């Protein structure tokens, strides 16, 4: 028994030591399910960063990195947990780039990542609930929490002197989370939310919903829904009955479909969605070229998630999750040399020499609070029936 204990202790020691090895990184995304059209380019983005680091030969004395894909399904927590369990126990991954949807991400985190002590960096889970999840410091995300979007929305509206709004949200985790975080932020800033009511997607008639919203009143209607779904129905009914003339749209509502549906009928409406005009986005697009779509949602975030994980390993001098987890925030934020996409080799060199880097990446990463992106948003306004940028914040 004593011998066995000694052996395991020795094994644990050597695992932490820096030596050339083949590091496996799990990429767990919903390759099947509701967002299956987005995930291929997200995975390509992450694998691009992994390849860049692996090919440089600079990580941990020439270690190589191999990605292993698994399917989160986006909706089935059981299947996602099983997939993550397989990655950790059978493939022996040192970190997980993922998962994508908020629900499966928290399931994997609490059932597989935390019990096994593996770091997770999600590129796209935006639920505010993940900010307070019990994660032992293992969970990060390069996507901003919707709580942050609520704050940004409040700032946009307050700057225009709008202090009374009605809110309607699509009845799911995204809509409810966003509407609640917005209400909290808006009321804290001294505004009034006259009503915070849900609407169901996929209905033909929203006159009853709009009747209630109109009765509650407000200077503007905040529609936290989907442009291809009930969100547009609500806007249409509100315009038809003359209940509201101007609206405020969070990310789910902003798209070319909005212009096509309403054009100049919603003149003066405002909104915001995650976006950045930083140098990194352009550089990222250049590196990717035609290999895959670099502007597809959450693809740059995926590149950044994988890059951050590997840079943290280099900074810690170890691929052991329990060691490098403390370095993720350090490499992501100032001070240090700013690192753009394609400069991962340079970053690895600086870190190897004991220097400090500030990973900027494709999405101007800045991790705040419990390890989530501060988030950059593009504020828009509808002018002459066209969505135009006001500024980035």
């Amino acid at each position, binding site marked *: 028994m004593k011998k066995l204990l000694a052996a395991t202790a020795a094994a644990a020691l050597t695992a932490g030591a820096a030596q050339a090895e083949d590091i496996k990184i799990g990429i767990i995304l919903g390759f099947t399910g509701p967002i299956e059209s987005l995930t291929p380019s997200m995975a390509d983005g992450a694998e691009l960063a992994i390849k860049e680091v692996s090919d440089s030969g600079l990580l941990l004395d020439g270690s190589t990195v191999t990605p292993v894909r698994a399917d989160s399904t986006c909706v089935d927590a059981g299947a996602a947990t099983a997939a993550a369990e397989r990655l950790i126990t059978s493939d022996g991954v040192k970190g997980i780039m993922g998962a994508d949807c908020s629900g499966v991400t928290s399931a994997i985190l609490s059932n597989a990542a935390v019990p096994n002590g593996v770091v997770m960096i999600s590129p796209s889970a935006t639920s505010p609930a993940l900010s307070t999840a019990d994660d032992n410091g293992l969970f990060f995300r390069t996507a901003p929490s919707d709580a942050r979007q609520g704050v940004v929305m409040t700032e946009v509206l307050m700057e225009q002197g709008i202090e009374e709004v009605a809110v309607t949200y699509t*009845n799911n985790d995204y809509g409810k989370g966003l509407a609640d975080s917005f209400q909290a932020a808006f009321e804290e800033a001294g505004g009034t939310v006259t*009503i915070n*009511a*849900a*609407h*169901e997607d*996929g*209905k*033909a*008639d929203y*006159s*009853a*919903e*709009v*009747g*209630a919203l*109109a*009765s*509650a*009143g407000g200077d503007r209607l905040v529609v936290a829904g989907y442009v291809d779904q009930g969100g547009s*129905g609500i806007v249409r009914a509100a315009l*038809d*009955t*003359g*209940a509201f003339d101007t609206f405020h749209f969070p990310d789910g509502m902003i798209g070319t479909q909005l212009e096509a549906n309403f054009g100049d009928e919603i003149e003066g409406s405002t909104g915001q969605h995650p976006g950045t005009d930083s140098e990194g986005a352009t550089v990222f697009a250049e590196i990717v070229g035609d290999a895959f779509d670099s502007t597809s949602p959450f693809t740059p975030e995926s590149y950044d998630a994988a890059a951050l994980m590997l840079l943290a390993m280099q900074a810690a001098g170890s691929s052991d999750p329990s060691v490098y987890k403390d370095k993720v925030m350090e490499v992501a934020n100032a001070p240090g040399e700013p690192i753009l996409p394609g400069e991962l080799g340079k970053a690895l060199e600086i870190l190897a020499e004991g220097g400090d880097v500030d990973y900027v990446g494709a999405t101007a990463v800045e991790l705040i609070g419990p390890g989530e992106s501060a988030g950059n948003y593009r504020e828009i306004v509808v002018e002459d029936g066209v969505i135009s940028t006001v500024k980035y914040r």
Partner: protein
Amino acid sequence: MDLLNALVAFANFVFIPAVAYGSQLALGALGVTLIYGILRFSNFAHGDTMAIGTMVTVLVTWWMQSVGISFGPLPTALLALPFGILGCMALVLVTDRMVYRFYRAQKAKPVILVIVSMGVMFIYNGLTRFIIGPDDQRFSDGERFIISARTFKEMTGLDEGLAFKTTQGITIVTAVIVVALLFWFLNRTRTGKSMRAYSDNEDLALLSGINPERVVMYTWLIVAALATVAGVLYGLDKSFKPFVYFQLLLPIFASAIVGGLGSPIGAIAGGFIIAFSEVTITYAWKKVLGYTLPESLEPDGLVQLLSTDYKFAVSFIILLIVLLFRPTGLFRGKSV
């Protein structure tokens, strides 16, 4: 002035939408009630019959729009409506020939026919999705408003706007015409009378020489016409989405049962009862009360009895109450 504002707000958000919705439900419920009265089963495929008729109309409308045929300020769909009705009639007659006649010949129990109609419902459902897809389709054109909220405010100087959409106007007018035609047909023509006789007492009707197959055929033709008109009006006023038509089954059946299955007048009354209860119970009365009540009594809350999420629950509750206390419905139809 305040009273006028209250009245306008009430009309804009409660009265006009409920009347339009009620007319659409009434037309749907008339179809269900005719089938129940004459063919003696609850036709679960009715919502999808509406969808099929509307789909044909939508396709013809698109074709007309592409070759430049228009109906001036009125929606082109009204011109395409007869084609939709013909398409729907052809389909239900083929269905009757291939499916229902077999069970009729066997004198199958109504409950078997109900299950058969569910099978037909799934086939129709698939057919619609296969041809036009599951997505939202817009096919309305022409003038959108008779009075828009903005012009009404400018005209009257009131704080509240009143919007009256062209489609709502058309719905109400068409519903009145169709219902008048139907009652004239049932009460005045020979075929209509033979249908009512067949409904009242099948054996007696057969004895007096009424051809049952003819009655069945006429019933299907009328039902197809009613379903298509109801479906097109609903689609014009709201939007056309196959799944929504499937969901409409609940309020339509609730309307027919509340009014009394088998009773055409009951179906119309039921349609309006369901529509008005759905809208009034989920409406937030804060604004209207704010205008009418003196300042000291003005409500702080929304004065909303039920959140709009529970709209469909209203139909269920009314259905339950009626079935518990008056199973034959308000107008003494057949018991279910």
